[in-house]
């Protein structure tokens, strides 16, 4: 177990190194001068030169790279030209918003895909099964940004039920930041109403992400359920007089979840990719929007940081899911103990 962790950890570090190197060089091939942007209109040439030196932009590329990688070892992601602050500081400010959206979406995705799969299996081969399939399939074909706009239109503009964007109602005062996760901070502050406000703000962006992935998720869960239902122990349990609810929750579901969960890390990877789009549409103050706005003004450091951080999040989640797998699967748990 420890050996596996060490190997995976070492490998993850190597992947991060490759990703950081690749994005660093790719983003710096641009023939542009971010210092000129920072200095602004009518700035004197001396002001531009001063800024260039301040950000190390006048040094050769290779020495910039070495300095950057050296900084990374200390958790220093460089300085953002756009926000005038260390990228690490910006990440601390923006990462919780993204993580909260990602984790909430992931949970929503798991709940929804299993719920739909259970319904589909319950009425297998019938119209419910078919309808779920058709709807999830159509959902997977909707571009996430288009869906986001449609959701905004219906739930904000037409119905007025949910906010158009942002993490928290504009005019309300957010809870004191402790973890940066509003769902947790509001509870820590003991403010259930604020918790509801944060939850309401999460719903549309999360739905835009989730609906896209439901087709694959539901299909995997459905197949796993059917496989489990066909196993002999289900017949045994039935023979012992267990009701359908007990069979589903006590036996089938527990055994079916593990193999599907292991295959879910890829889905999580897609979520990370879509999150930039969703943040742009829903004005979600996370690292995606931060990096995208920085990219627009040739501010490279945040883009490289986004690549590193999102790869890291992906690696951690897939490692977590892999570790969870033997723990969740009763058969494997017995085998190891």
């Amino acid at each position, binding site marked *: 177990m420890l050996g596996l962790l060490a190997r995976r950890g070492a490998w993850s570090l190597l992947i991060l190194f490759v990703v950081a190197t690749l994005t660093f060089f790719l983003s710096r091939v641009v023939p542009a001068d971010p210092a000129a942007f920072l200095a602004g209109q009518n700035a004197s040439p001396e002001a531009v030169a001063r800024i260039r030196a301040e950000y190390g932009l006048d040094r050769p590329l290779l020495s910039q790279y070495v300095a950057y990688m050296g900084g990374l070892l200390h958790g220093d992601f460089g300085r953002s030209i756009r926000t005038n602050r260390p990228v690490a500081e910006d990440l601390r400010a923006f990462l919780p918003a993204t993580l909260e959206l990602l984790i909430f979406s992931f949970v929503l995705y798991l709940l929804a895909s299993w719920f739909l799969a259970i319904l589909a299996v319950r009425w297998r081969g019938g119209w419910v099964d078919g309808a779920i399939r058709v709807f999830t399939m159509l959902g997977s074909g909707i571009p996430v940004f288009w869906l986001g706009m449609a959701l905004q239109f219906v739930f904000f*503009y037409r119905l007025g039920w949910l906010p158009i964007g942002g993490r928290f109602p504009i*005019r309300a005062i957010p809870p004191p930041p402790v973890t940066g996760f509003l769902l947790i901070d509001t509870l820590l502050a003991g403010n259930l109403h604020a918790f509801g406000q944060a939850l309401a703000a999460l719903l549309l962006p999360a739905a835009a992400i989730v609906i896209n992935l439901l087709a694959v998720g539901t299909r995997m869960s459905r197949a796993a359920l059917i496989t489990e239902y066909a196993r002999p122990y289900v017949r045994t349990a039935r023979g012992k007089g267990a009701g359908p609810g007990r069979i589903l929750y006590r036996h089938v579901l527990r055994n079916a979840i593990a193999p599907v969960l292991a295959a879910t890390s890829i889905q999580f990877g897609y979520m990370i990719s879509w999150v930039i789009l969703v943040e742009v549409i829903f004005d979600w103050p*996370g690292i995606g929007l931060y990096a995208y706005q920085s990219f627009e003004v040739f501010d490279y450091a945040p883009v490289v940081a986004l690549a590193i951080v999102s790869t890291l999040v992906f690696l951690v989640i897939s490692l977590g899911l892999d570790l969870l797998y033997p723990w969740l699967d009763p058969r494997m748990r017995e085998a190891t103990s």
Partner: protein
Amino acid sequence: MNRYRWCIVALGPLIGLAASGATPLRAAEPSTLVWAEAAEPATIDPAKVNVNQELTVARNVYDHLTNFELEHPDHLLPALALTWKRDGTDWTFTLRHGVTFQHGQPFTAADVKATIDRDLAIGQGQSYLVSDIKQVTVVDPYTVRITTQQPDVYLAANLSRIEIMSAADIAAHPKDHGEAYFTDHANGTGPYSFVSWTRGEQIILQRNTHWWGHFPDKPFDRVIDRFVTDAATRARGLEGGAYDLANFVPRDEALRIGHLPGFHLVEGNNLWAWPAIYLNNTLAPTSNIDFRDALVKVFDYDAMTQYYQGSSVTPRGPIPDWVPGSPEKDLAPIKQDIAAAKAALDKSGVKNPVMTCSVPSGFAEFAFAGTVLQASAAQIGITVKIEQLPFVQAIDAIKSNHSNCFILGNANLSPVDATKFLAAHYTTGGYYNTAHYDNPAFDKLVAQISSVTDPQQRYDMLKRASQMIIASHSIIWAARPKTDVPVPNHIGGYRIDPAEYINVRLWELYQK
């Protein structure tokens, strides 16, 4: 169905909480105004503020020595200065008594000197408006003398754009002129004070009840300057009531929203919505003057006028007729003439021409001007490739000579001084001189204008300068529309400042 009951038991309270969290769209506290800004500022330092979203904070938190009437920009009004007069290269300002900064220090002449010295030392932001200043002298606590290199008739007007900081603050942060500190701290004498800045989300301002100026009845006590980068989201949020006012709403949306029940349109003059197409003088094929001539003549100006639905005219030159001292009425009209365009193209000798055009994204009007150029040029066999880029990338493409053309709205931040605008857009080295227009005679002429005291002589010089640019065929002035801003009926007092990007004067707004 009891197997699903646990789901309902678990999800029920969550849904209930979310429902309770879905707050009513308009707030219960009406004295808060939400202004949807198009981007997050990089800085709120008055010496560095440059673009619209940065000016929002600076203009409202700080005061200026002078002010001006929006309808008659050449009529100056007192602000921190009560009177002023020019004598050769010396301007003398007498200052208002009893003004205090939001952090408590009294305002005196030393603050004016420290501010201008700092602006000039940093050399960024709006300092170009006062770059002519040689020296600032404190005569007594309420009198300040400003000496310029050459006589400058526009200085008092241009000072209406320079935010006055506190000398004590500047002295307290000596390192690098306090650039790090002032990036996100502000202490002015103005109508609103800076409260907080949540990165990526919003800046909160609070009404300064000790302000020396006059608020209307029922002003807004709290202002949330919300960063909403997506133009369509701003339009939708304004229409749906999430924001009270929004900056840069796409024009078609603005007109439609303004005509909805509960909204009205405020119309005014402003340079920003005016798309001008800059043709690069230093990159083939637009380096050929006859080729540029062909483009100027083939452009479909009527298409632009139709797009603006009647609120636009076709410009004749660089300076709109509503700018004080504009020579526009004495210039010849510019019209589409396809036969003449063909002749010019033949004369140029350019065969199978292909050119690229970089257009800043996010502004539907600019994109449309590009579309019209593309379709017009195709009529005489010119292929125009369009690349929509974020503003900084687009301007970088043309400044680094990778693109033939660039589309830009304009801004003249001085209420009366057209030479600052001409300098930025057409003189050698000007930041927005994306046509790479290079004419020493023009540069010299523009630099002289502000030192001439006779208005008629200045008029003639401006006219000559305009004719020089027109003759170079470096610019297609596509349209000059009115600016229309949709305003909800519960807000009064909104006016469009002609010498600004489209922005907001918070201290004039009130609840209806």
